């Protein structure tokens, strides 16, 4: 059944980011012959339209007002609502990002419809649009259909494959009005990120959990990551370890932290609570070191070592040096 789809894009410089390309691919699939539009907001939005067309969009609603450069929910909700109306969208997709978490519910309640958050699948099930999302901290998955239109979903990064880029693809551009009023003001910003390789870009993530026993355990995690290579491995932490103040919140992997999808995820002294697995289960390979042979982390791992990390990790560091 043909449906008109609108994707809310996010920018990475003068191009749409990789998640937007994934959403455009998913949107093209469920549009099933309907139109595929994208909303692009920010001073670089006009330039980014070309990358959206290359990723599958047919039409771009562009709000090039610099006021959109920072996400202010009232302004973005207005602009996206206007795009929904103009595109007669029946399906709206956006990322489960700091933008999507905030925008999705506002848009849904404002349009008198519904949103499903943090979806990992968007499908046409015999003519009905369904979405599937993890719940109960990752212990279960729930599949929903929508009783109202538009059907709105925020979608987890890396859960969808992008289309092969269509270089030179073109589309229609529709200008959106300048940003409207915002009831909230941004009074300040504080950057708190680890230097060097970022967690979500690292091909290898070494994560430590509560079982490390203290912040000094993370010094060993950092040494381990450095031995693998500073350009390859980043250090993450479980929520329990972050809540105990052992490692910065910016490095938290899990449902309420960052979702990482590296080639290799190394879980050290992490029990594997479902809410942690929600942040790393998309990794290509998981390996684990844990004292408890029954720890849940081993259920998701390809290889594991049962033992005390204080013995095993230094041995791994030595073995890597050989």
């Amino acid at each position: 059944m043909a449906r008109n789809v609108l994707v809310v894009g996010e920018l990475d410089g003068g191009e749409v980011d990789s998640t937007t390309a994934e959403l455009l691919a998913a949107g093209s699939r469920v549009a099933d012959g309907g139109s595929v539009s994208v909303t692009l907001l920010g001073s670089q939005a006009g330039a980014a339209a070309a990358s959206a067309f290359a990723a599958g969009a047919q039409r771009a609603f562009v709000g090039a007002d610099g006021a959109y450069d920072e996400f202010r929910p009232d302004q973005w909700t207005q602009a996206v609502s206007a795009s929904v109306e103009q595109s007669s969208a029946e399906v709206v997709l956006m990322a489960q990002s700091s933008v999507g978490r905030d925008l999705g519910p506002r848009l849904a309640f404002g349009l008198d419809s519904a949103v499903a958050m943090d979806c990992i699948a968007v499908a046409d099930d015999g003519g009905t649009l369904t979405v599937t999302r993890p719940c109960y901290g990752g212990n279960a998955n729930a599949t929903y259909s929508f009783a109202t239109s538009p059907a709105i979903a925020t979608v987890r990064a890396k859960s969808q494959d992008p289309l092969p880029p269509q270089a030179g693809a073109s589309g229609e551009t529709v200008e959106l009005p300048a940003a409207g009023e915002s009831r909230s003001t941004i009074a300040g910003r504080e950057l708190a990120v680890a230097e060097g390789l970022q967690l979500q870009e690292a091909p290898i993530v070494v994560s430590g959990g509560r079982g490390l026993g203290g912040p000094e355990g993370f010094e060993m995690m950092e040494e381990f990551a450095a031995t693998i290579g500073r350009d390859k491995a980043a250090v993450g932490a479980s929520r329990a370890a972050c809540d105990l103040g052992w490692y910065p919140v910016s490095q938290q992997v899990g449902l309420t932290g960052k979702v990482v999808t590296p080639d290799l995820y190394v879980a050290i002294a992490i029990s594997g609570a479902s809410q942690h697995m929600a942040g790393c289960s998309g990794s290509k390979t998981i390996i684990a070191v844990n004292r408890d042979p029954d720890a849940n982390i081993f259920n998701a791992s390809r290889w594991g070592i049962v033992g005390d990390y204080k013995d095993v990790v230094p041995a791994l560091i030595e073995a890597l040096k050989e």
Partner: protein
Amino acid sequence: MHFVVCAKQIPDPETPPSAFKIDESKNEVVPAPGISPVLSQFDAIAAEAALRIKEASGDAKITVVSLGQESAQAAIKQVLAMGADEGLLLDDPAFLGGDSYATARTLAAAVEKLGDVDAVFCGRQAADWDMGQVGLGVATLLGWPAAIIAKDVQIADGQMTAQRVMPDGFETVQMPLPAVVTVSNELGDPRYPKLQQIMQAARKTVTKWGAADLDLDPSTVGAAGSRLKLERLFIPQVSGEVELIEGDTAQEQAAGLVAKLREAKIL
């Protein structure tokens, strides 16, 4: 000032995965035997945020509101024991089986009926369905501004100031009251009530409101008013069998693991 804290009772999220069961014929979680439901941890942290402001300002009343059945009294009593002043249970057969929309609609109607509310505090998400949209839904239905995933909340001079957790740090946002905020675990641990507070809370009367008290048409709340239709609830399959690397010493195990990773060209 009058603050509302929204509190939800949920199956204990610390339930081990092995004890987590679903009745697929009903699309329902089967309560794990011997494990009592708990107040969603993020809601306890939302209560903590409201209590800190009450203590700093000295003249705030906190009403804790829960949408649930009689058993949700336990969640309300826990927040009362932490220091909230009044409890309100939204309990009506018409409220059962609601999605985030139906829940937000019911909570917003309760806030409206209370009448003099300056701020609503919610957890960033309930640790059962993990949707994270009821707080924003209440705000949108009431027409109030909102900030989500805050690690610090201040209220002064008719303004709410919230420090939001962002992927690359923190953002401070300000908005006029009345407003809604959702609170994250970075705020810090919620307080443990003292025994005396628990006993006092047990004696407090909790007000009960149903659909008629809130002038809500039963067809707009609960399962009847839901917009998301749960088609299927299931336990996802986890991949493959783990291979545990054996060895007499940690050195042997480590060498074995590194060899496997090099063989698979992962390292």
